[in-house]
């Protein structure tokens, strides 16, 4: 299935800003995060088609996944 992956902030460094990527069916956000080499603890807000999702959420054909890093410093 085709998933549009949008990366923000440091996730974009050495990767990409937005790509349409091909994945096998029945995949979770966590599996894509792992495939991209992003450490799970760094993941903050996750959107699928603009709605809040989690690492366990499954994706479907044509979904847009947006990943933001967890930012907590002051």
């Amino acid at each position, binding site marked *: 299935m085709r998933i549009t992956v949008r990366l*923000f*902030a*440091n996730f*974009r460094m050495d990767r990409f800003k937005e790509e349409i990527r091909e994945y096998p069916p029945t995949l979770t956000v966590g599996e894509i995060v792992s495939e991209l080499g992003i450490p799970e603890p760094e993941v*903050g807000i996750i959107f699928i088609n603009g709605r809040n999702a989690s*690492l366990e959420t499954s994706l479907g054909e044509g979904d847009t996944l947006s990943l*933001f890093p*967890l930012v907590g*410093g*002051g």
Partner: protein
Amino acid sequence: MPYSAQAEAADRYDLPLSAIEELSLTSGILPVRYKKNQKIFSIRQQLTLFKSTVAVIGCGGLGGYIIEELARLGIGRIIAIDPDVFEEHNLNRQILCTHELLGEKKVTGAVQRVAKINPAVRLQPISEEFNSNNGPEILDGADIAADALDSIPARLQLAGICEQLGIPLVHGAIAGWFGHVASQLPGEKTVQKIYAREGAEKGIETSMGNPSFTPAVIASIEVAEIVKILLGVGTPLRNSYLTVDLYHLEINKIPLKED
């Protein structure tokens, strides 16, 4: 009214400078220091700012700039909360941190800085770690809270207490080239949505650190949000969060929809 006249009146009538400033603004007389505010704030709005109390939780990178800007704006009362002392590695970004203050409490830095830039502002220093136990008492009487903390669990506790007390909260966080801001009025759960993942304590700031420019940018946006909420003007950043990426120079306002 020039500062010298304010100081003279305070001396002559044995009143604190804060009382002279309030009397002056109430009488429609603008202290000279606010002359360049005059085109965007009326004297009545300047008085509203002076009669406001803002709690700043955290006096480090974000908190230092927030306190600086609130004092220059003429916010009448600032509650500054931080348990830490200044360390050498704070010098790269924390505006309240100077060589002279290394080893001193951060809230002492806030007191000294505010006294130097706007003596009419009352700054209440609280050298304690903010948590659910002391939070309600610390925030009592605050019109709004500014989140300048560096721990995700503490931020969530702050959001919960603000909700409980019905106080608006302006939230900001930073890491490396990146940061974000959100404003949350009572009843909204924006901060809880931003930090929805259970068990998270720190973010990418542990690997990216914090340079000088990111806290200044994020703190300034937080202060603009505080002013808009206190005055009821403009468009505060509600039910969404503003991500600021200074590396790719991209700013996004992201709506946080209901699940």
